[in-house]
């Protein structure tokens, strides 16, 4: 149903106006058989009036029917049942888990194909991006891979449910954290591709470094034997441990190590088993983090203003230059454009960016694959090279130590997790690279920002789910490390200890609006959704069976309207003859 078509209804008045005003010709013809014309006019004027009236009615009908056709209007018995079946494949990171020798994700795809074969007019989406379900054109032929992003059942469902499908199949890995407590409508069928199996998973919950020892806090959701490896620039330790719930592993640690990388393996989900931290102070880095990702943020607005601040001579902005924003009015005025409207901040941002570029210092842009980011890259003359698949990186980079961005003058060490989570952007000429994080990564931390320059942050509870959140946390820590002049004092990732799903520390202050915040306490978190429901509510009436249904589209009025448009056009041409 395309309601926009009805905006054209006022155009129905056009034929009436034309009919009433009429067209007065400029041309005059002297014509001797004038009496004949008068006679014809006298005899046929009523006929002409009736014909013109009929033409008017027919033309209005044509317009009206055309609008109905364009609106795709359907009248069904049930207004909820509109058209087709929507299939959502959970392509989130957790579907990488192996069930036997096959990933759960591959099983999901097989189920989706099965439904497709039995159902007409079904469309398949993957929910890798919680903000926008991604339509898969041809799942039967297209190679679909899970992505290293979280999936969010609720948002994905909300988006797809608005598309008017009569039934929606949600094919997931049975990990209910993403949708527990959410009341789906009856047309939602949840299919557990892992058939109720629970996969034991382990992860690194935190790392405590003290002189001579590094303590690795491991957690799991069941009993599992994991291998661990702690590697630094000067040492390497390996071992195995049985893990139930929480276990701490202590490893000797050389105090003069530059960095330390930790890896565990042996559980079903391999992707969240990495941790990296650089202990020693790096050279001062200026890091700009810009928030382009949450849906409430107007990406283009930010792109627009960033261009402004980067343009020499335009340091200040007037409020009337604001581009249309998707944000609520009060939030926009109070928070979001604070730096836009504040000349010192403008100067600051500009100087920072220029300085970063001149000194070839990395600029971290916390942004998704969105227009705003692309525009910035274009503006900075940076070529986006694209996303690299995790698997290919693993082949290329089997070790922890990965030289990365050697343009900086000293070799940077990144864990492969970082690598695969990053978009690699290729600098054009000698301009420093920009690193794009995936959209909506959580950025939860509490730090003394003595000399750091954190311009804005992104944090979103929806994204802070297990297991993907911990992948980002080290990266954020790393960012902070680079931001500090005097090294790390206290760094705590965004895990509160309240299970795997509640990731916000109780003392973290957050705002409902993205933007720049300068607080005395130096707590910087933004863009949380305060209306988030509790994840702990039990799942309601979800069904776990494949039940393809017939397509039901209702009485498709628009098709008949299209037919009658043609008939009326024919009628009009006959009247004009």
């Amino acid at each position, binding site marked *: 149903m395309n309601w926009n078509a009805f905006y054209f209804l006022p155009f129905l008045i056009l034929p009436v106006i034309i009919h009433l005003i009429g*067209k*007065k*010709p400029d*041309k*005059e*013809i*002297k*014509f*001797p*058989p*004038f*009496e*004949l*014309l*008068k*006679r*014809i*006019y006298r*005899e*046929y004027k009523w006929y*002409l009036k009736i*014909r013109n009236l009929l033409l008017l009615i027919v033309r209005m009908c044509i317009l009206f029917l055309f609008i109905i056709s364009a609106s795709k209007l359907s009248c069904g018995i049930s207004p909820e049942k509109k058209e087709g079946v929507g299939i959502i494949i959970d392509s989130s990171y957790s579907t990488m888990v192996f069930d036997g020798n096959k990933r759960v994700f591959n099983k999901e795809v097989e189920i989706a194909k099965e439904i497709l074969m039995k159902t007409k007019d079904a469309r398949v989406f993957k929910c890798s991006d919680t903000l926008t379900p991604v339509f898969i054109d041809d799942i039967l032929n297209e190679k679909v891979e899970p992505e290293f992003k979280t999936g969010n059942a609720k948002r994905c469902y909300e988006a797809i449910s608005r598309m008017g499908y009569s039934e929606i199949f949600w094919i997931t890995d049975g990990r209910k954290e993403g949708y527990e407590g959410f009341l789906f409508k009856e047309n939602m069928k949840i299919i557990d591709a892992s058939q109720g199996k629970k996969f034991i998973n382990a992860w690194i919950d935190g790392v405590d470094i003290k002189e001579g020892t590094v303590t690795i806090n491991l957690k799991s959701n069941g009993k599992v034997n994991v291998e661990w490896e702690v590697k630094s620039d000067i040492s390497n330790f390996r071992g195995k441990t049985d893990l139930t719930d929480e276990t701490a592993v202590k490893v000797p640690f050389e105090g003069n190590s530059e960095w330390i990388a930790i890896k565990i393996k042996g559980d079903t989900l391999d992707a969240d088993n990495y941790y990296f931290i650089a202990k020693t102070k790096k050279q001062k880095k200026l890091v700009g983090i810009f928030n382009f990702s949450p849906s409430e943020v107007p990406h283009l607005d930010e792109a627009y203003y960033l261009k402004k601040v980067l343009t020499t001579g335009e340091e200040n902005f007037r409020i009337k230059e604001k581009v249309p924003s998707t944000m609520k009015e009060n939030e926009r005025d109070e928070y979001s454009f604070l730096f836009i409207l504040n000349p010192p901040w403008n100067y600051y941002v500009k100087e920072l960016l220029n300085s970063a570029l001149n000194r070839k210092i990395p600029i971290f842009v916390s942004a998704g694959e969105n227009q705003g980011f692309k525009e910035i890259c274009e503006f900075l003359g940076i070529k986006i090279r694209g996303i690299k698949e995790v698997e290919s990186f693993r082949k290329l980079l089997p070790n922890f130590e990965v030289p990365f961005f050697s343009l900086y003058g000293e070799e940077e060490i990144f864990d492969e997790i970082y690598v695969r989570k990053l978009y690699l952007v290729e600098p054009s000429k000698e301009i420093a690279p920009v690193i794009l994080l995936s959209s909506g990564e959580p950025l939860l931390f509490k730090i003394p920002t003595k000399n750091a320059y954190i311009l804005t942050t992104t944090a979103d509870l929806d994204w802070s789910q297990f297991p993907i959140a911990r992948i980002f946390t080290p990266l954020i820590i790393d960012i902070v490390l680079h931001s500090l002049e005097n090294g790390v004092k206290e760094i705590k990732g965004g895990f509160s200890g309240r299970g795997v799903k509640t990731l916000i520390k109780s003392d973290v202050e957050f705002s409902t609006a993205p933007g720049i915040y300068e607080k005395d306490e130096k707590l910087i978190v933004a863009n949380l959704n305060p209306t988030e429901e509790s994840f702990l509510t039990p799942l309601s009436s979800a069904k776990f069976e494949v039940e393809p249904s017939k397509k039901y589209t209702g009485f498709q009025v628009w098709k008949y309207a299209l037919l009658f448009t043609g008939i009326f056009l024919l009628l009009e041409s006959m009247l*004009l003859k």
Partner: protein
Amino acid sequence: MNEQLYLEEEILSKAKGLYIEARKIKGELLTGHHKSKIKGKGTDFAELREYTSGDDIRDIDWKFYGRSEKLMVKVKEDKGRIDLLLCIDDSYSMDFGKNNKLEYAIRLAGTIGYLGVSQADRVILKTFSGFPEIPPFPSKEVFFNFYIALAMIKPNCSTKPVKFLKDLNALSKNIKVIVFSDMLYEEKLALEFLSSFEGVEFDIIHIIADEEREITELEQAFFIDPESNEKILIEPYLLNKYYRKAFSDWENTLEEAVNENGGLYIRTTTSTPIYETVTNYLTGLGTKR
């Protein structure tokens, strides 16, 4: 101005051997091409009448002049002459067409007038407006004036055929009237006009411009009556659908009315060559298209 303007060799060669025929008084003439009791240049004296410009001075009765000092002409019984009255419609409606209708009528009248004089008829030229006033042309000798008169005819009146006929009725009934007109009057007026020819031999040469028969400009426009300047806005749709038939009906009505009143109806269009129209007229076929 000379007669070559109105006479074409081709016409004259094709008209050779053809004569303007007086239908009603046929059989009563003694000599010449017509059998008529009308008075003219015969041999037997019939009566005297007042001298008018153009009369042959040899016909003046000098004896009567000596007695009364009045110039009178001896009218003798004509052995084959008729008075040929050529009536040209010089109304504004005739001034129309790529091939102008009035121009066509003048050329046609010039040719027929020449033929009339050639067969020793007396030719009288009249316009509906009465302007210019033109004397009769009794002989070839003064026929040059006839062409001067033709050249002076311009569109200068609205169609008033009945008024014209009133003047016509004052003339002798022993004449043959040939009307050159587009006959674009109101129907009532046209029928009244035709019925007024009672007792007079008349031929109607109906001249139609091609643009009148087939309207080519079918875009919406104001149509203007050239005589009254009245305007009408008529949709091309109506013209396209009804005009041709209306015109055809009008032509048929006219023809029937002419026939009923004992006249000869000849229809021609301005694209028809003059010689063809003349030939058709003289052979009595008409140009019925």
